[in-house]
């Protein structure tokens, strides 16, 4: 077991990769009452086409299957796993994103038992035709709930406008129609391919003893048989550089219209440090423009185009990346046009040295504050681990970024062809 101490932030990480390939990370924080554990597979809604374990040919599965599988893993032949956690006084949950499926719990007592429950239930699937059918009704309600949420629709609408073929444009939960086609056998195929320990990370943060906890996990894994680790072949369609649709309008009952502008990323660095630097720089530049202390935010606010709902966010993954900027507005066309203008003028109105240093300070403070949360630490640590990056090391990279790095980055970050707009408007 490796131990690493990060002096400035006073955190410790204990890490080990087990013989079956499972990566385990433990971050002890004895002051906390709680322990949070998250067991994550590198498998999300975008992993639609792949070569199943021990097979030769590429297969494509129905939209929304990773999320469906997440739901079904909680159900066993004789019980619902939520109840197992309840019996231990722990609270459990799970989520599916574009690239990950994660199972988690938090507890203030009987942590060992909950940890065992977590690892065992994820590694012991039970799918039946009957329970698969039953789940379709529940997930259909979940999809309908999202259908009524304008912010969610706008977010996905923007992604759809950015991408021609890449599966990031598929709704994470699928559609009522697509999930209808999911079978028990599909679930097993996905499970056996993507839930191999070699494709997973277990991260535990909180009130635990690292040595004992690691020994416990090793012992648990030693008792189980897995096939030899093998690489997974995933297939993604070729995606053009330019956006799929310059403009997309969603009609649904909203009291205030929305306008969002999307930026499609075409260059994603392989090197972990460069990848991370790109992510920080995207974040810093968007902050400089569009955060509450941003220069464009002030202009748009003065022009009466935005309100408190205005925000920006970025996602950068191994094979796709995008940013979304916007919010509620009285004049959607005007707002979209103004956001695009701000983005395309980036080079000529670029930020000065002092502003760059100020935003860096802010980012460092934000990270420190976020570290109050065990969930944040474990989630971020896992996220970057799956991208081949040590999250705590990356803070150091942030501190070392220079104003010149930023100028280099903005020189060719954004071209018109990478921008799209999504409107949400009420029927007239």
């Amino acid at each position, binding site marked *: 077991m490796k131990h690493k101490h990060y002096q400035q932030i006073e955190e410790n990480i204990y890490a080990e990769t087990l013989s079956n390939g499972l990566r385990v990370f433990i971050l002890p924080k004895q002051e906390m009452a709680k322990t949070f554990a998250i067991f994550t597979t590198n498998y999300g809604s975008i992993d639609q086409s792949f070569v199943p374990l021990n097979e030769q040919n590429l297969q494509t599965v129905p939209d929304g299957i990773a999320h469906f599988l997440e739901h079904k893993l909680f159900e066993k032949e004789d019980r619902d796993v939520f109840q197992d956690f309840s019996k231990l006084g722990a*609270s459990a949950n799970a989520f599916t994103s574009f690239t990950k499926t994660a199972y988690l719990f938090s507890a203030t007592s009987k942590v060992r038992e909950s940890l065992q429950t977590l690892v065992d239930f994820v590694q012991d699937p039970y799918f039946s035709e009957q329970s698969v059918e039953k789940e379709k009704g529940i997930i259909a309600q979940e999809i309908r709930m999202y259908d009524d949420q304008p912010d969610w629709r706008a977010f996905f609408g923007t992604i759809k406008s950015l991408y021609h073929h890449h599966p990031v444009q598929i709704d994470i939960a699928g559609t009522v129609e697509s999930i209808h086609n999911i079978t028990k056998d599909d679930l097993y195929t996905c499970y056996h391919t993507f839930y191999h320990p070699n494709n997973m990370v277990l991260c535990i943060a909180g009130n635990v003893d690292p040595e004992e906890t690691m020994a416990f996990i090793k012992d648990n894994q030693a008792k189980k048989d897995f096939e030899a680790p093998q690489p997974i072949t995933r297939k993604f369609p070729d995606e053009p550089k330019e956006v799929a649709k310059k403009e997309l309008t969603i009609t649904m009952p909203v009291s205030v219209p929305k306008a969002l502008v999307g930026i499609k990323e075409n260059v994603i660095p392989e090197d972990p440090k460069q990848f991370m630097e790109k992510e920080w720089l995207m974040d810093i530049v968007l902050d400089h423009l569009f955060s509450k202390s941003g220069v464009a935010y*002030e202009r748009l606010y003065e022009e*009466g185009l935005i309100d408190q*709902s205005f925000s920006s966010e970025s996602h950068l993954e191994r094979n796709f990346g995008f940013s979304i900027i916007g919010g509620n507005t009285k004049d959607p066309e005007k707002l979209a046009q103004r956001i695009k203008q701000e983005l395309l003028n980036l080079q000529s109105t670029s930020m000065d040295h002092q502003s760059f240093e100020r935003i860096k300070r802010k980012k460092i403070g934000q990270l420190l504050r976020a570290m109050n949360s065990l969930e944040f630490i474990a989630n971020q640590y896992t996220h970057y681990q799956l991208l081949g990056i040590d999250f705590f090391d990356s803070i150091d990279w942030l501190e070392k970024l220079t104003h010149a790095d930023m100028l280099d980055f903005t020189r060719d970050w954004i071209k018109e062809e990478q921008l799209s707009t999504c409107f949400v408007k009420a029927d007239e």
Partner: protein
Amino acid sequence: MTETLERVIPREGYDLHLIHTKKFKTIHLSLKFTSNLTRDNITKRALLPYILQQGTENYPTAIQLRQQLDELYGTILAVDSSKKGENHIFTIRLELPNEQYIAGSQDLLDKGIAFLREIIYQPKLVNQAFDPKIVAREKETLRSKIESLKEDKMSFANTRMIEEMCKEEAYRLRVHGYEEDLDEITAEDLYSYYQQILSDDHLDVFAVGDIDGLDVEEKITALVEERQQQPIEKAMKVTKDNEQTLIEEDDIKQAKLHFGYRTNITFNDEDYPALHVFNGLFGGFPSSKLFMNVREKHSLAYYAASRIESHKGLMFVFSGIAPEQYEKAKTIILEQMEQMRNGEFSDDQLSETKEMTVNQLRETLDNPQGMIELHYQSVLAKSTITPEQLLQKVNTVTKEQVIHVANKIKLDTIYLLTSKEAEQSEA
């Protein structure tokens, strides 16, 4: 883990609450001004948080103010209004990194406190009133906030239900205020009302974090200007005999079925710990009756849950269902309540629920905001019980106490927000 103790120091004009803990890498300062909920003042109190964040004497524009926060390593300033029971709470909060974790940072706490003082006591003024331009614009901001609230259907349904359920009580008031009040509010009125909050509300000041040895007590003395502490008034308890059902329509795909109950049990009552356990068994967790039956057994909903209100004595049930499943879902939810009254839950379920409830409360104490809110509940209830004592009481709740609580809880209102199409297709 060691228990974190709160020191309460009554000061001239306010109560100071110091909570020293090594759990967090930040220091939190929170000023909570509270007064009764009234229809006359609610919109002003909802508008003020927006105004105060638009500028001060030394940082006269929003961007200057925000950039100063960035300079303080991304210190967070939050000003908001909320209701607990029939109290309206106006909170001004600062969250700053503890400088021991940032190389090269100096006097962050002093700078933070000076900034907070400026926000509270030196807002941007024009002729002894708030800047009328700012007021005019922030009215629009609030107006669009009020409009957009209608889009969160779960919260909209709950707001509508409470309005009907508590028609004669202050609790009905919308915490974000009312659009129709906005036109009449002037910059002068608003400023003079703000002065009234500063001098006449009940005030509590919280400081949380690794604060021992930082002279926080002394520093806060310089933060708060002279004032007189006021008493807190408690919510009225209401008992009603008749139940009502309300059905409203909206342009939605998923219907919202909500129930409003009166528990008449508040934070200070003997039965309060048992009410927590009741809620855990009934609808507070994924193992609860509501989730297990409405969602898992009958696949009727994606969510079905209950939540208690601790200062007025209410309980709400929330569910999102297909519009045509209304009768069926209603029957099942009412059945779960009957089962609770008849004590149809096992000893194991009881002890698991107690453990989850304790777990949940302890987890709240791992979060700085949660820690402040939990301690503030005691303030509003005029109770001296500590969070740890509440946990101990939860641990000793018996099955009889839960049944006793279940039988005290009375259904008041059933509220359905359903789709327009559903009504048409049935008709």
